[in-house]
């Protein structure tokens, strides 16, 4: 009797399909070892002084007390705040009108503006920084020209170094997020709502104020927080332009590089993460109260504003912004063919900057390609599996997985490096200085890209397609291979390409984790800039830019809309 029950139980269990459980538990393991554990242990280390054992007796707040005692800490904190808020403010002020013009005003070259608009996103931020040094530095040509004009009224533009330069460069770098997101919002806001207001007698201004702006506000909120998080975590721009003005990421770098004080770095990391979390919370509170469901499904095309005055303003405005945004790209291309550029014109035309690349940078190029390709493929696999689990299996701890995967999205890159370094430079898994630690940091940091992209594909995929395959007699693996995978493939590719193109330029994670053996291209460019070797920095940057551009262009060719929309979230 009992034996029979057991036999029945075993037979029943054997009939079930266990492949999903096996495959799907692997990402969980990875997340726990390489995300949860490092984050947990670096939080712990933050409360212990450097060199001491992790135990209750050693708990101390000394690492945090520096924020009250050290003026360098206080200044960094103030700078980070000031920079992040200013960048959000300026990107909104400049980006929203641009989004509005392109979405609602009749003007030529809209497609071109939209695609050129994403260029700053796929250009490494530190490349923007040093090209502005060329243009607006002490001897910069643009600064000189501006000063000629300003000199007439007795003013002069300071050189780009310091807070002004950081805010200026970051604003241009992150402007595309606001531009693209607000453009999307202005375009997708249901025009019937505005038309009905018009019929009820509202003026243009009133409609803009009472209908249009409230509708696009959630998108602007999302864009603001995206910009804020990035501005808070950016390492390259303040490292190049900051001079003696530190911000939290450069302060972390200083703690680790100068003193090998991971505990102190962990404490600064915690503070910067807390700031980001507070910002997200405030944004959620403010925005969620103002988010609206679309009531009607009917919609029509927006009528474009055709007034000549508005058209002229729109065209001049957009061209000006584009010109300024594209100046870095043009500058580095020019610079890469010259020996130096001090004063009005570059001097000494040469191809040497390119000819020397194989000699000095072949290892960095190899490393970059190897790391970016393998890490992208791993990220694709990992992100896809996790997205599948949370979207389709909906396990009990689903929210936790969702949260764990998205956490690195809001963590500054350098914070992830600190967490990995504190955990894996010694002990059971000692991998500091290897390709492996870089690879892990890349996968952890970029999984949100693939995850989001694939999750979006999965939500759009009718569950009935998979169910009907199961009903037909296919097991989980067969269904995944023949139905699910081919249908979410565009989402996987879009996420992976985005991952690849951003990994090629990754600096803020790599800066703490690289070793002589694992040096990447962005590191080499950064070092060249630090040495004042702008020619080589430019030729390497051009190479990087062209590679990224080709990859993104090819993806656009094959995937069309999916691709460019994924950049809005990236």
């Amino acid at each position, binding site marked *: 009797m009992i034996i029979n029950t057991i036999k029945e139980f075993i037979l029943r269990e054997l*009939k079930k*399909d266990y492949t999903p459980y096996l495959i799907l538990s692997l990402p969980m393991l990875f997340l726990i070892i390489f995300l949860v554990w490092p984050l947990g242990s670096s939080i712990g280390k933050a409360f212990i002084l450097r060199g001491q054992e992790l135990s209750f007796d050693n708990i101390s707040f000394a690492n945090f007390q520096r924020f009250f005692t050290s003026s360098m800490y206080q200044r960094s904190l103030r700078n980070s705040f000031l920079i992040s808020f200013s960048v959000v403010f300026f990107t909104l002020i400049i980006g929203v009108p641009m989004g509005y013009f392109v979405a609602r005003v009749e003007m030529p070259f809209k497609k071109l503006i939209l695609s050129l608009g994403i260029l700053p996103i796929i250009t490494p931020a530190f490349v923007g920084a040093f090209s502005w040094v060329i243009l607006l530095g002490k001897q910069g040509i643009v600064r000189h020209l501006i000063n000629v004009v300003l000199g007439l009224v007795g003013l002069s533009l300071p050189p780009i170094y310091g807070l002004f330069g950081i805010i200026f460069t970051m604003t241009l770098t992150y402007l595309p997020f606001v531009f693209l997101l607000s453009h999307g919002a202005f375009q997708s806001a249901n025009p019937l709502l505005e038309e009905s207001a018009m019929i009820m007698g509202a003026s243009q201004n009133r409609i803009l104020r009472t209908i249009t702006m409230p509708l696009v506000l959630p998108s602007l909120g999302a864009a603001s927080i995206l910009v804020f998080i990035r501005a808070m975590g950016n390492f390259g721009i303040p490292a190049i332009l900051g001079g003696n003005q530190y911000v939290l990421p450069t302060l972390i770098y200083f703690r680790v590089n100068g003193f090998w004080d991971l505990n102190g770095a962990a404490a600064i990391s915690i503070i910067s993460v807390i700031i980001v979390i507070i910002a997200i919370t405030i944004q959620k509170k403010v925005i969620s109260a103002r988010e609206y469901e679309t009531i009607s499904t009917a919609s029509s095309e927006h009528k474009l504003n055709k007034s000549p005055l508005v058209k002229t303003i729109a065209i001049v405005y957009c061209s000006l912004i584009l010109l300024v945004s594209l100046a870095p790209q043009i500058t580095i291309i020019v610079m890469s063919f010259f020996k130096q550029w001090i004063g009005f014109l570059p001097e000494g035309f040469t191809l040497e900057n390119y000819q020397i690349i194989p000699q000095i940078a072949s290892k960095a190029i190899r490393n970059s390609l190897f790391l970016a390709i393998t890490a992208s493929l791993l990220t694709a696999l990992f992100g896809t599996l996790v997205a599948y689990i949370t979207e389709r299996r909906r396990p009990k701890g689903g929210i936790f997985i969702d949260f764990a995967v998205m956490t690195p999205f809001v963590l500054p890159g350098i914070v992830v490096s600190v967490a990995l370094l504190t955990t894996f430079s010694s002990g059971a898994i000692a991998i500091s200085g290897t390709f492996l630690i870089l690879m892990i940091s890349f996968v952890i940091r970029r999984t949100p890209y693939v995850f989001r992209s694939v999750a979006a594909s999965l939500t759009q995929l009718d569950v009935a397609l998979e169910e009907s395959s199961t009903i037909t*007699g*296919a097991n989980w693996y067969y269904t995944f291979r023949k139905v699910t995978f081919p249908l979410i493939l565009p989402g996987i590719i879009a996420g992976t390409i985005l991952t690849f193109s951003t990994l090629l330029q990754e600096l803020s994670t790599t800066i703490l984790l690289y070793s002589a053996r694992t040096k990447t291209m962005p590191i080499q460019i950064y070092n060249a800039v630090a040495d004042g070797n702008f020619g080589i920095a430019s030729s390497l940057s051009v190479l990087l830019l062209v590679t990224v551009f080709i990859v993104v262009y090819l993806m656009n060719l094959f995937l069309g809309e999916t691709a460019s929309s994924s950049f809005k979230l990236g």
Partner: protein
Amino acid sequence: MPNIIYKDVIKKFEGKEIVTALKGVSFEIKQGELFCLLGPSGCGKTTLLRISAGLETLTSGKIFYGEKDITSIPPFRRNIGMVFQSFALYPHMNVFENVAYGLRVRKKPENIIKKKVTEIMELVGLPDVLRRNPSPTALSGGQQQRIAIARALVYDPEILLLDEPLASLDAKLRRYMRSEIRRIQKATNITTIYVTHDQEEAMAIGDRLAVMNVGLAEQIGSSDQIYQNPINMFVANFIGKMNFFSGAIKEVKGDNYNIQLGYNQKVLDLSIKLSPDKKKYISKGKNIILGSRPEKLIISSNQEGGLLPGRIQIIQHLGKVVRYEIRPQWDSVSKLIEVDRDEKLPEAKEGDMVYINFDKTDTLLFSEKGKV
């Protein structure tokens, strides 16, 4: 083809609060039968279908396909076919590959696949589509529907499940496809469960049907049986329209009932046959509810012989019948009374008074709790 037996099937969904979708359903679907699950949304019909497919697990109870207990067998081992409301055709495969899918899963040789797909496409009336073999997204709704059916039948499943298969088609195509589905079902003689919320569709297509409400199968039978003898007021009003009036039994003499209407104390005599078990509900002095189909009520413009006064609110000419919606003049909150007549009542306009009477042999009695 096996029969399907449900034994006390209970399904609870656990979320923030526990929702009991099925509260203990037991019945049998016979071999080769086209059986409809009918009910309003949220009644549990789709849950029961998904449980039959294995897409949902049940909280307790058992399901048998013939002798086989399939309660805990996963869907991909059940050998069933299913047509989804959205059709669920694979957009990345052409029509042939869509239909052949189940055969490929079963690793059939290429020549068999070709033969079976061709045969089934002929059965569903689309032999020509294979020649161009387009992506299913390029086809009309009706064609997609047929391909979904072909795909579900091609590998000779033991049971066919249809989840509101016509819901996404327009009204005209719906009428046509429902007779097509019945034709195909009879040609293959496969035991079939058909879920719908449309009572007309269920009555037209099903050999038998189960009327479901709040997680229970209220009544099971042929559409004629249920229409003629609804077990309670819910079924009566869900399968066709029924008007209800309150009253009390004054006297019972064999099959003759003397009833006093609740509104104006007028009295009417009914002569109806009730089965003995129903008869025990009815006794002298009991309050009851009279139920009458729109086509069974009698209206006239003169007061003589009429029992209940009403004012015509709307006259609808529906082709075969003329429908009168009548505002009762005895009770200000009552629902409108619907009366269908073959011909127009002469001289009666919207806004006029009419007098309602009952069919003495064709009026139903319900106890106050709703059961007969």
